[in-house]
């Protein structure tokens, strides 16, 4: 974790409040992770769908945001597609403070869009 300074952490601590702990009710279902790379690319780059580009640099995508890490060399960071899928289904499991939306858990993407985007990101 790269928290800029202990003071910042202090400030953040003072300001944080309990967020009525919402437990992850919708665990990732058992779905076959056999999506389509091209369709997944569409999901990742389209505003009304995944809009991953709003926060992540993605090779070949225009005007990326800089809130999340660049999505490159994914297979060096995840040992399995299922691990990657978990991050996209509900990133708050690994990091409760993350700003990335829980794309699966909150139904932002339907199951097809979800497996497609997993396939595409896995290919990067």
């Amino acid at each position: 974790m790269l928290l800029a300074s202990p003071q910042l952490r202090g400030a953040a601590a003072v300001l944080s409040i309990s967020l009525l702990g919402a437990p992850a009710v919708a665990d990732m279902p058992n779905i076959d992770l056999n999506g389509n790379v091209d369709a997944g690319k569409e999901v990742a780059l389209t505003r009304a769908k995944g809009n991953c580009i709003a926060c992540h640099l993605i090779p070949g995508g225009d005007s990326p945001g800089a809130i999340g890490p660049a999505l490159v060399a994914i297979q060096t960071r995840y040992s399995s597609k299922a691990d990657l899928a978990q991050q996209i289904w509900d990133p708050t499991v690994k990091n409760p403070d993350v700003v990335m939306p829980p794309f699966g858990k909150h139904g932002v993407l339907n199951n097809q869009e979800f497996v497609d985007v997993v396939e595409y990101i896995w290919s990067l």
Partner: protein
Amino acid sequence: MNKTLTTITALGISCLAAAPIIASTPTEDQAAWQAYFQERFPQVPKDDFVNGVYSIDPVGRENWEAIEEFPPYEAAISDGEEMWNTPFANGKTYADCFPDGPGVAGKYPHWDKERGMVVTLPLAINECREANAEKPLKYKKGPIADLLAYMTYESRGGVVNVEIPEDDPRALAAYEAGKQFYFARRGQLNFSCASCHVGNSGTTLRTEILSPALGHTTHFPVYRSKWGEMGTLHRRYSGCNKQVRAKPFPAQGEEYRNLEYFMTYMNNGLELNGPGARK
């Protein structure tokens, strides 16, 4: 990873680490809040946070300064002045409700002890109208934004100074409710206000630079190029709720009034510089 990528990653890490609930007073919150933004943006003089995203975006600032030469909110100010000077059907005017004149934006929002609620300037305007048998105005845009533009303009140079009276625990509760709102995640996309304007302020969401929360209330109403017209603070709240696919709350309802109370208190000491212009 090369250096640029590492920097991008570093910027992206949310600064709101999981933290134990620490009871803190509003005074402590305010000091921590202001210090947080000053440390996060050491190059920005404190007074400059009132300029929103332009305090941290030199390129956007150049365009904005050019726009400010012929401010797009000028028509609203003069329309608002006319409203101020035009008597109601019963012969009375706004001045009967606001005896200290139009330049009173610095007195709002305030805790009204008798009524046990936060009173904002737009609310006071509509209550004035209703007391004089006039129809209330819509809260997000239109004539109320004009009148606010005039009153805010007349209030320029004042200093934000919201009080949370210690002798009324309900005032503290309203403040706490506003703070809770600010940090609560909501909507299908699961963002809090703080996700964008505290933890990720200064980074980019697609091409949009996220402004620091410090200074957010000082310049409303604003002429926003995207709207092509003036809008009130609660219109902006509503837009920021909608973009995370959360249902917005009613303008001037209790939730947004308490939110305004919290946010404005965080800005105590900053200069009132409304109305504003934003892209």
